[in-house]
């Protein structure tokens, strides 16, 4: 079968059937993280305290909730791609590698869902 033509590989039809897509989304989410995580860190530092009232009040603001949901999606997407590369580089047993990549996907998507639902609940709940 061979590994296809040069043009086929460039079009994303190499052995992994996805070309440079992984690399590109890693960069795209990295750029998003530069903005979103920096905003999040600055916001956390500037909050008067991390008490329940202060944090839920802050998360209830629409722009904060939207940015936080984007942040959660972006962060968990980025870390899923990053952890996968680390496992692919250092875990050489095929069964362990497959198992760990499945685990990474469950963790990233699961924790991402927890974060996004939690933000939405606080934001939609108003002053609960």
């Amino acid at each position, binding site marked *: 079968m061979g590994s296809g033509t040069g043009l086929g590989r460039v079009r994303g039809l190499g052995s992994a059937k996805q070309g440079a897509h992984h690399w590109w989304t890693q*960069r795209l989410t*990295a*750029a998003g*993280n*530069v903005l979103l*995580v*920096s905003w999040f*860190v600055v916001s956390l*530092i500037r909050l008067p*305290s*991390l*008490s*329940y009232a202060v*944090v*839920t009040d802050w*998360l209830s603001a629409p722009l904060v909730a939207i940015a*936080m949901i984007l942040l*959660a999606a972006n*962060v*968990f997407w980025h*870390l899923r791609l*990053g*952890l996968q590369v*680390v496992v692919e580089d250092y875990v*050489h047993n095929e069964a362990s590698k497959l198992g760990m990549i499945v685990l990474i996907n469950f*963790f*990233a998507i699961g*924790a*991402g869902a*927890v*974060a996004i*639902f*939690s*933000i939405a*609940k*606080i934001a939609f709940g108003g002053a*609960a």
Partner: protein
Amino acid sequence: MSRNESRPLSPHLTHWKWAPNMLVSILHRITGVGLSVVGGLLFAGWLLAAASGEATYDWFLGLLTVESGAINIVGAVFGIGLTWAFFTHLFNGLRHFVLDTGAGYELQTNRRWSIAVVAGAIVATIAVWLWLFWPTLIQLTGGEG
């Protein structure tokens, strides 16, 4: 993957003379994994606790803080550790964006920016926590507060 034992291996970590660009590359992976696992769990756990009500949230915060709201030793280790990991990963990520354009591979340039990433992250971490602890430090030294 199976390896032919009679074939030589390329020199690995223990054979290379350490250089800043190696250090920063390894740190990028370590901080990335640390931020993913510790940071990811804390982030999702913190939001879930906040969404579950005041009692749950106070319990969660109690793991990282003392009664007065100041951080405890666990909070300090996670907080300072994640701050340093964040700045290291951020600064080196920005360095990677430059490398992606094909620039910055000259030996001296690569070395200089690798050192800048490591040093910059340490300085930024100290600056953030000095700023956070400033009121406490003033009080401890008998100042106005």
